């Protein structure tokens, strides 16, 4: 994520928040859908604020907040829910995509959503997940294969 350690003085948590919120929101939406993802991120950022003195010293505070959010999301014990495709608004999108995304294993889903959906780089996803870039590539390859199988997508080239 590359958020780094915010400056010591001033409103550093605010700076951290503004730096990481958009990216973490995408990651959490990828993880568990927009509703639960946003809630989990809110919980994690609240926790980050309450424990800021500890978290600010970490080498990757944004990655830590992501893991806190993931932990909170898992405790909900719900399958990810993605909004249905509004055909008029997104005519090019298969209606089966949301369900197929939800059916992917967690890490494959996050990797696929962030790389192909949000144009994150492989190192950025690796940093977020705390895994190697090659692992991200594996997740992507398997995720896409599975997504295609789930959607029975005909690949045109």
């Amino acid at each position, binding site marked *: 994520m590359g958020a780094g350690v915010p400056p010591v003085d001033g409103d550093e948590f605010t700076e951290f928040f503004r730096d990481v919120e958009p990216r973490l929101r995408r990651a959490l939406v990828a993880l568990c859908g927009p509703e639960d993802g946003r809630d989990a991120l809110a919980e994690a950022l609240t926790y980050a604020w309450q424990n800021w003195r*500890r978290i600010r010293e970490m080498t990757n505070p944004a990655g830590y907040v992501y893991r806190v959010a993931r932990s909170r999301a898992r405790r909900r014990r719900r399958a990810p829910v993605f909004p249905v495709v509004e055909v008029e608004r997104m005519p090019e999108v298969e209606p089966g995509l949301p369900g197929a995304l939800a059916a992917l294993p967690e890490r494959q889903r996050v990797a696929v959503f962030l790389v192909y*959906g949000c144009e994150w780089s492989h190192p950025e996803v690796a940093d977020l997940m705390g895994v190697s870039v090659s692992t991200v590539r594996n997740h992507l390859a398997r995720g896409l294969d599975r997504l295609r199988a789930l959607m029975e997508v005909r690949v045109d080239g």
Partner: protein
Amino acid sequence: MADLDAQLRRYSEGVMADTEPLTLEDIEGRTGHPFREPVVSRLVPTRRHRFRVPRLVLVGVATAGLVALVATVLVVRGGGEDPRVVATPEATEAPSPGVVSGNGIETLDSGPLSPRGDAAVVWTGREVVVWGGDLEASNMGVPGPDQAFADGAAYDPATRRWRTIAPSLLPATSDPPAGVWADGEVVFFRGREAAAWDPERDQWRSLPAPERPVTGAVWTGRELITLPDFAALDPSTREWRSLPVPPVQLSSEVARWAGQELLVVGQSEPAAVPAGDARGMSYDPAADRWRELPPSGVDAQAIDADWNGRELVVVNYDMTAAAYDPAANRWRSLPAVPARFYEWYPRVVSAGAQTAVLMAQSLVVLDDNDHWTPLPYGELPVAFQPVRPQRPIHADGGLVYLFGYAPQTQQNRFAALDLQARLDSFDTIQVGTVSLTVPPGARLTDAVFRRGDPTGALPPPETVTAELATPSGTCSVSSTYVGGFGGLALDAATGGTDRPVTITPADGSPSWEALAGSDPDHTIVRLDESDLIEVTCTEPGQALELARYLTPPRSQ
């Protein structure tokens, strides 16, 4: 239809466009504090401590059982980083004063006091104060006569240093002391004596003696309500007053301050075996009135409880749990706590958003969805003690401090626990079922264990083996059954005899060693500080369910 990449991009754009960004106000609304204002600006120098008075309850839970958890659990939140400043009431939600290294548990310097049990441990908003206690030589495994102590020390998490405190006005007796933070001073009770210690001036002042021995007290913001007789002391006027007669006579009672009322649960008198349902009552100081709570549905044997800000969470000897909501005047059942049954008292402690149960070297955390998560116990202090009144628990949310006597080293042990950090340090992965062959003739029944029948029908030593499937592959479980108190198979090796269970992973990684201390119902096999397997033995000859596998901690 577009290719999959394009579909993903278009769909993600749409989803994210419809997902409202979080704002600073969203987070502020959850914390109740504006975080754009630097925390330090909400810390104002004063001559005296002015932290919000911590919820603090002294619990006199009595008797029954062969061993008891004697570590005192202290929960704190808030407080200034700088010892020269103290926080306004609003600042009590600020980040915790100490930083817990590792995976949410840090063993701290245990301080200058000689080894002891049953000390009073109090959080002042800035320091952890430990005072009094005693040494029951024969029961604590040390030579020499029993001793009682009237000295104390205070630990400052900001500086990580202890200081000894002035000699007290209270006697060194065998009465377990009780301590309460009461708006600028710590009030200690010992039997029929009371005195207050001012941490700022390091001075003591005497207080009028209670009519009857005090085993615990709760600070309401104005008065100290003492247990077990429910009298009230105003430390500013030095006056005692009587409370109305409670609607229920309780023993082994646990009391917690719930913001506006005192909640008390316990075993109704006269005591009986079985204990029957825990009964509860509430005292409203503003109205000077008691009311009885609805039936709890929880057996009263060895209960403990804590107030989590919304409900009183109660756990008992059988690991049955329930929560009482005063707003609705209603109890609700919680899932059973996945901790080992043992002749032990549970400790319930609420810290921030988490409520935890510490039980026989088990640490189990309850989340907002009523799901219990067992976590590695780590090096938290526990001790085995014979039957004696239980220790107080002091609570104010946030970090948990534990001070206790460790019989293994015959020293005090002191540690800090950050529940959320501990929880966030582990992934929980559900794995399958393994089988374990139980030695012929072995009996593993709840009744046998609970009767404490140590040898009866238990067979001679025998090695049992099992194949254990884990995420890293199959491994062999080997345990030598030696008979004795507590059981068979895995448990025989870990519970009554301290014999290790060796688990040898097939992939050649280092062997894992079982935790000492277990029981036939739940055996926790500790791999190392960061890994934990919990297995549940159902019946002899049947399967052991490998319930949880916690992966190594995430690196930071």
